[in-house]
């Protein structure tokens, strides 16, 4: 419809005498004509000479954009250098050395090898739990496992993995989900139910003031293992759960 009155010859039909750019340009002009514009006024009056125009012409047609481009790329390069050197990004290639701090065994603290201080926290049903009482109820060779959750997809996948793989292998230990985001006992209970963990082998704890989170210097998916004698055996990210299983196996 748009081109019914136009006589446009393709480059092939013109025996290659006209390059394809001009062909496309004329198609564009015919479209404008179909829209009610006058392409003769708009374009052709500019006395364009496109014959012989090639990609190389276009490539070389402007020097200033090239300089501008190089300048901007240089700025981005500097940005990346500073990002890597200025502490904005992490060390992508650490030495491989084990930099975990050495702690004095038997001292009180939350790092691996230290004895965890006693703590009290309320579960999602309003019962106060203390670490000492939970440890006292453990059979030897078992542990209290704290998993810090904010009920995100990663947390959920870790929790599901624990339910399916870890807890069945080490059923004598106690597993707690430490909720540090809900801010109330009722909130913890609500999200525990809505996420499908009510009645599971987890006990949800409401860390309403984030005191337990801060005590263990924890964040999302931090997993803490405390053996029956109160010694912290693990305090790190859950990752794939293999470290947790190794730790529980080694008790």
């Amino acid at each position, binding site marked *: *419809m*748009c*081109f019914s009155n136009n006589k446009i010859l393709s480059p092939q039909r013109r025996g290659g005498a006209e390059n*394809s*750019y001009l062909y*496309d340009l004329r198609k*564009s002009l015919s479209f404008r004509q179909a829209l009610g514009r006058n392409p003769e006024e708009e374009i052709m009056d500019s*006395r*364009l*000479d*496109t014959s012989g*125009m090639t*990609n190389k012409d*276009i490539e070389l047609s*402007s020097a200033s*954009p090239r300089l501008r481009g190089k300048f*901007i*790329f240089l700025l*981005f390069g500097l*940005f*990346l250098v500073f*990002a*890597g050197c200025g*502490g*904005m*990004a*992490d060390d*992508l*290639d*650490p030495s*491989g050395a*084990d*930099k*975990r*701090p050495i702690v004095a065994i038997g001292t009180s603290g939350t790092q691996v090898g230290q004895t965890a201080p006693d703590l009290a926290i309320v579960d999602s049903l309003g019962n106060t739990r203390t670490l000492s009482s939970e440890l006292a109820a453990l059979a030897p060779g078992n542990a209290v496992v704290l998993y810090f959750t*904010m009920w*995100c*997809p*990663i947390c*959920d*996948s870790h929790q*599901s*993995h624990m339910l399916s793989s870890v807890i069945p292998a080490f059923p004598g230990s106690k597993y707690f989900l430490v909720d*540090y*985001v*809900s*801010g109330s006992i009722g*909130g913890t209970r609500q*999200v525990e139910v809505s996420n*499908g963990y009510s009645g599971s082998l987890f006990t949800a704890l409401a860390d*309403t003031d*984030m005191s337990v989170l801060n005590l263990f*210097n924890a*964040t*999302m998916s*931090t997993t803490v293992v405390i053996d029956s004698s109160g010694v912290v055996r693990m305090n*790190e*990210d859950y*990752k794939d*759960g293999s470290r947790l299983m190794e730790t529980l196996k080694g008790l």
Partner: protein
Amino acid sequence: MKNRVEKYLSASLFLTVACLYPIQASAASCCGGGSASSLILPKFSQSMVDASLSIEKYDGFWNKEGKYIQDPPGSDLRQYRLNVGYAHRLAANWQASVVAPYVWNDNRYSGLSSRTEGVGDTSLSIFYEAFDSIMCTYKVEGIKDLKPASYFGASLTIPTGISPYDDVQSSFDVTGRGFYRLDGIALFDKTVYPWNASLLLSYGTHLERPVDREYGKYVEPYHKRLGDRALGSLSFGYTQFLKELDTVTYTASYSDLWEAEGTINGESDSTPGIRKKSLSGTIAYATAEKDWIIKGSWGHTIKQDGWGENFPATDTFTVGVSHVFQ
């Protein structure tokens, strides 16, 4: 004069490719969000600068079985991203671009709130245009007019953001994933005015890296690699010509993102991979000269079972402006 010609020749491709980005999906801050997108420069144009602001609002997630689960009551989780990009023509059929985001994480739960910010992961891209002339047409006169404009490229994601393996205190500080990723990208675009269709396919692989620290705590060193990532996106658009030949283009897209499980010390990570299906709509206004474009888009995920796995459900609102130097 040649510049004038270039303007008109590049105009027809401008809107369609400009509406295609972002071509990479982002993730929540807890999952390592803040990744940049790629830019595609219109044919025959020399360079382009682009700036956009995105607001991504998180609203629940899908678990590993694909069941949709709501966030804790009272939570309001958002990420704001300012993307600044530049694309440059290297040769007649080659172009390169760089996009760097700046990220603000704003997470509010009933029990805590957190606001953090930082540079996100930067992307460097290079594309080859497998066509020498404008492939858009106004009327199909033969089989030649059905040939699409094809772009083949590679994109390198550089972990300039703050990752879980950086010296951070919590997951809320994270603005990047901490891994290099190399993507191969193919884009096929066909415009028969006023209609447009495009297909984007990409496949990326993360490079393994050593880790000795997680959320600021030193751990026993290990090697980690995130899983391979694939993205497919299908778009359809319609261009409306205004009085002064300014244009408004409406584009609807469907995207499917998949990422496989990664490895830890070469062993398969039992934490499952991710999947996210999303819809998006874009409105783009362009001047008649096609040297300025203003865009607004809404990316939406269906918050029902089966539309994702192990990934947050989000709504993303983006406004942006591009300027093309002919």
